[in-house]
């Protein structure tokens, strides 16, 4: 299944009570301190389940996960045949 930035923003605001107005595709989630390591585990479970992928520990990086648009691009790369 595909994952887009509005879906991610919806998940983040519903699950972590973050104001949806704060979350743009380019909002830094972890480097800004908005999310912490406890949120990370829930975010990974959500992305894995939604996109039907497995994220390995070595892929948990700011390059892949720091903003909604990076997460979407990372998922697309993983799903590419």
């Amino acid at each position, binding site marked *: 299944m595909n994952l887009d930035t509005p879906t991610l923003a919806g998940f983040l605001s519903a*699950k972590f009570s973050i104001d949806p107005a704060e979350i743009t595709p380019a909002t830094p989630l*972890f480097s800004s301190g908005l999310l912490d390591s*406890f949120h990370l585990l829930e975010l990974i479970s959500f992305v894995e389940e939604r996109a039907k992928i497995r994220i390995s520990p070595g*892929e948990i990086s*700011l390059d892949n996960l720091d903003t909604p648009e990076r997460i979407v691009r990372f998922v697309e790369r993983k799903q590419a045949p």
Partner: protein
Amino acid sequence: MRKYARTLDGLLAHAHLFDDRPFLLGPGGTALSYAEFLGRVDAVAAWLQAHNIQRWDKMGVFLPKSAAEAMATLAINRLGGVFVNLSSKTTPGRAAEILRECELKALFTTPHMARELVSTAREIGCQLITVPGKAAGVESTGWADIPDLAARPGSLAAAVDNDLAAILYTSGSTGRSKGVMISQRNFLDATARVADYLELSPSDRLLSVLPLSAPWGFLQLTTALHSGASVILQPVAFPVEIVRSVRAHGITGLAAMPPTWIQLVDQLENDGESLPELRYITSSGGVIPPRILEAFPRVFPNARVYLTYGLTEAFRTTVLPPEWFARKAGSLGRPCPNVDIFVIDHGRGLCGPGQRGELIHRGAAVTLGYWKDEEATRAVYKSCPELRPYIGDEVVHYSGDIVETDTDGFLWFVGRRDALIKVAGYRVSAEEIEIAAAESGLVSQAVAFAQPDPVFGQAIHLAIEPLAGQPFDADQFLSHCRRTLPTHMVPKRLHAWDESMPRTGTGKIDRHAVIRVHAGSPGASAGSADITIVSPSPIS
């Protein structure tokens, strides 16, 4: 002649010895020399002084890990003021309470948080300084608008070593988080003993993974200032990012808590890699699993390992020297120089080797008590009848940790005296979670307890009795928990009872019976924080 530093202000003066050396590398590549960093600290202190801040005034710092956070914290001490550094996990509601409790005169925070706290700040006359710039629509001063100084100011305030330097909040075993009052002497004494045992020098580069709102994290700054070392701020503790930073910056020293060691070691082992850059590593805040300890020499081939222990109330008090690591891994080590530790069997006396008792701290490591909480202070900061023959009625600190000493004088952790839960090194009070649950208006009873967790040490489970006659909405309940509790305190698993929980003879919930029912039930596995509802089988 070099002056002996008795206060943090004195430590800043001493640090000018290293003026031309690099001190701090912030996120986003902000690099500051000692002279640049100390100059900015002076500028902020001078600005605060011009805005009627004086010795003993309390000021808050509520910022993500950044150069500004470090500078604001130390600028407050430059004036003889008291800093209250709030963990980034603090909810806005709790932050507002702390603003009032500490009667903060100024708060350094983000524009976003300033908007959340503006009405409380106005009510108590607390000035807002927002980082990086002025917050639109809020009466505040932008960090960037604080002018630099042309010359170094002299002493801005007289502080003595018994002055309060900080109030740092931590969970106790009961009730709300408490503000631990830390003196100038507490910080200076700990700075010297940590810099000594780690043998820090100007060639060291420390990676700061720990929050500056915890004494241990703050000590990385002060031990660097003491010894001329550099600090690289690492706001995100993903193992991949830590590995990258260690390599990119030639990090020589890494301090972290067990969850970070577990994830980092697993990652390095999995990739067959190592970090030869590290000269030392140091851990505190819980027990590291044996398989991780055993991997340390492989993944950190050049690192001396320092396992340490301490509490916010008496921090960095024991260390296991690296030469003992192979023989005593898993021990808390021995008391650091100038720290006195006793193991007491209440009512009986001092414990000998192999006898279990409570760990008691004495000396310069003992902090001053809990801010405005006389009852909680008296419960753990008190004289010790078993020590009266030696030290009279001197006040010592009761740690609540049950330990035993082996025949070589090493301390081993056995357990807690109370129901304190520890998640990823953060102390969590079961009562605080239960209060939050009750405030949801969705449950009639709640019992919080801990279950083992492979990464975080313990995970929080919550058994609840829904309000009678109402369908229980778990999503609504959890969203209430997320709004009112810091993330590490949000229950990982709920156990909803469809009948009454067991009661004691007096009609109170029988906590132990409730917890016994769930003791064998599965904890959520690492990597999946999904919260599920389980219904225990009715008690026969």
